[in-house]
């Protein structure tokens, strides 16, 4: 199979993205976001604005992290996503923070164009910055209003901070220098859980964003940055080289949003999605309408998520069509990658049995792949394979190799050596020994490896959402970003069921192939 037909085939297998009704003026524009509420919201606004102006938008929301989203944009895998100037300056350019937002914008606009051919559209209008937050009760008891107040008591405080913030020079290290803040303990917490951890009293202070809806939802107090340490960051649309070149009218449509959004707007909108759990498409449509950019209610591309109250069961029932198609996509990701891993690892494991000297090194080498964090592996692949289904399949394939290879080798080697020796001595050919002795005797161990790989694969495939491959990870990523438990469960429960089903089905296979004696 040639490299050009593979993506085409996968497209056939996984189906085309839904196409909007109006006749397209251009190729579909791929709109992406990072996995947190405000990013989803801004991306959805971009997409709806483009659709209102007659373009076709292809949504790839919730891409893993800055590196994943940006490398996808740079290589024209996606066309546009919302980014913050400060993040561009620090995380991508690796420059030092600067206190003047206008100057930061000018610097990133110039540098991104020169280095990557990537354009920053004029900022959307609001600024976003780090916000150090505590519970209202803590603030009252310790009389905390500013970061200088926090410095006074920081030695008694337990902090829960995003890993990003702990390492960045404009994060914790800088905070220590500027204010003399040194916490009693620092725990790395992901954005999705740090608010709950703070609310539950597991930690006393967290980092957030100034426009977070969660600050309202959990009734937190943001401590004032009285020495002006955190530079304010402006949000803006980041435009890929191909988008700017191919669809200048689309880029022009997006600039209509520039300068229109205030911090007040964002806090209100974020609150609707993060506190009230309103569907993002609805909130985005309202926002565009109230800004005067659209008139009628635009048609939804995705099934509107009903915000009305109701139990998890009702929610799952309402979402059944979506869940079913996500499950099918998930199953295909798992099935194709697992089949590929089987096709390589089974013969390799059996072949290594005769090359015992190299076997351990080969298996350990494959095992090293297993130690790579999934997100890192996915991120490494973007420059080579882009985003979407293909890199996800490759990553899942690589993760499935080790359990199958290890168990095939161990099972084949350990299977009744005396029986293998006798079969050989009585005149079986190597093929007969393999087919009639080694394989049947190793079958339980090999099947155990395949089952392990399959169950790991079902779980890991949920991470494929972070590189835009879809599947049950989509609602999990979005639900985590929005702290919407029902949405998380609508991905996690089917994934768990799928894991059990796959394991059960393979268990039945095992009973069929395994020897009785």
């Amino acid at each position, binding site marked *: 199979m040639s490299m050009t037909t593979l993506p085409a085939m996968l497209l056939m297998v996984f189906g085309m993205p839904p196409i909007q009704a109006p006749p397209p003026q251009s190729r579909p524009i791929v709109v992406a976001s990072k996995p947190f509420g405000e990013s989803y919201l801004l991306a959805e606004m971009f997409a709806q604005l483009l659709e209102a102006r007659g373009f076709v938008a292809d949504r790839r929301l919730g891409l893993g992290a800055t590196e994943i989203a940006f490398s996808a944009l740079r290589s024209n895998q996606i066309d546009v996503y919302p980014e913050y100037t400060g993040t561009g300056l620090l995380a991508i350019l690796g420059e030092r923070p600067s206190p003047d937002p206008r100057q930061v914008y000018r610097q990133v606009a110039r540098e991104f164009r020169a280095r990557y051919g990537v354009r920053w559209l004029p900022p959307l209008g609001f600024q976003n910055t780090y916000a150090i937050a505590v519970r209202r009760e803590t603030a009252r008891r310790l009389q905390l209003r500013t970061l200088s107040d926090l410095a006074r008591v920081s030695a008694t405080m337990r902090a829960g901070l995003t890993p990003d913030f702990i390492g960045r020079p404009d994060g914790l290290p800088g905070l220590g220098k500027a204010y003399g803040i040194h916490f009693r303990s620092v725990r790395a917490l992901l954005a999705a859980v740090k608010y709950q951890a703070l609310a539950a009293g597991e930690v006393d202070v967290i980092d957030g964003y100034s426009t977070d809806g969660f600050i309202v939802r959990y009734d937190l107090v943001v401590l004032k940055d009285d020495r002006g340490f955190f530079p304010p960051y402006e949000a803006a649309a980041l435009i890929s080289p191909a988008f700017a070149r191919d669809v200048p009218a689309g880029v022009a449509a997006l600039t209509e949003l520039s300068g229109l959004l205030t911090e007040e707007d964002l806090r209100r909108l974020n609150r609707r999605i993060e506190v009230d759990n309103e569907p993002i498409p609805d909130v985005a449509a309202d926002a565009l309408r109230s800004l005067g950019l659209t008139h009628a209610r635009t048609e939804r591309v995705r099934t509107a998520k009903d915000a009305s109250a109701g139990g998890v069961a009702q929610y799952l029932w309402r979402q059944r069509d979506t869940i079913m198609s996500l499950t099918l996509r998930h199953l295909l990701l798992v099935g194709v990658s697992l089949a590929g891993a089987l096709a390589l690892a089974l013969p390799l494991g059996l072949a290594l049995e005769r090359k015992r000297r190299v076997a351990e090194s080969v298996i350990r080498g494959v095992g090293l792949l297993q130690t790579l964090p999934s997100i890192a592996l996915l991120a490494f692949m973007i420059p080579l394979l882009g985003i979407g289904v293909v890199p996800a399949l490759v990553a899942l394939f690589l993760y499935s190799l080790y359990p199958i290879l290890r168990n095939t080798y161990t099972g084949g080697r350990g299977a*009744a050596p*005396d*029986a293998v*020796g*006798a*079969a*050989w*001595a*009585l*005149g*079986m*050919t190597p093929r*007969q020994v393999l087919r*009639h*002795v080694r394989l*049947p*005797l190793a079958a339980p161990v090999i099947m155990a490896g395949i089952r392990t790989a399959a169950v790991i694969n079902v779980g890991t495939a949920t991470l494929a959402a972070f590189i835009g491959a879809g599947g049950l990870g989509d609602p999990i990523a979005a639900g985590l970003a929005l702290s919407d438990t029902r949405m998380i469960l609508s991905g996690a429960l089917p994934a768990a069921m799928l894991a059990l089903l796959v394991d059960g089905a393979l268990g039945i296979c095992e009973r069929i192939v395994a*020897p*009785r*004696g």
Partner: protein
Amino acid sequence: MPETPLATRPNAAKGGVVIEGKLLPTIALRAESVTKRYGPRLALDGVSIDVGAGECVALIGESGAGKTTLLRCFNRLVDPDEGRILVAGVDARELDPFALRRRTGYVPQDGGLLPHWRVQRNVELVPWLRQLENRSDLALRAMRLVGLEPELFASRWPRELSGGQRQRVAVARALAVNPGVVLLDEPFGALDAISRADLQSTFLGIRRELGVTSLLVTHDLDEAFLLADRVVVMRNGRVEQAATPGQLRDAPASDYVRQLLLRARVTAA
């Protein structure tokens, strides 16, 4: 190369071998100056032996003496580095190893039954490999030969058998196609004394009935004396002495053989 021992000197004129005055018509197995190295270790160092047709020869010696390596040369599980292996007068290197193995019985110490096959299918292994039509008849006959009632044992799994029964199945499997030669690698070594004695007498009965040429590896001199027509004492990859039990007892060729006899008598008591 050591001299060919008197007792096994081939009688070239008649194409046979003289053993204690009896003339055996042909030589079934012969090793000529066979040398085998495993890395720096010399497993066989210029070994020559003959096994006459219908004869039972025991290879005896300590572990590492080269007994098993020599045995495995005769079904080409091992190919010598130097020297020749002749099977029924033909150089083994000219024989297809799989065909050779399918007409050579083999009994390993641990039985080596296929645990996922029932007893009868195990015994049918070689007939099946040779695609014989009457494999079921052959298997049942072989089972009766070793004293296993097919009605009781044919459909059992190997794990349902005692050690002695498993070893009987292994012998039946080796004999199912009535091979001209059977190679036995410490076949009764892992059994308790009573089972071993039972199997040894069964084996003697079979030998009387079939007259199959047998090469037997053992570290038990009593067993060698009981079962074998001739005994080949091996040490460090060489033949120390090859003789009938009687000759060995009367005229041990070296201190080593004398020591061996002394120890055997102690254990026999």
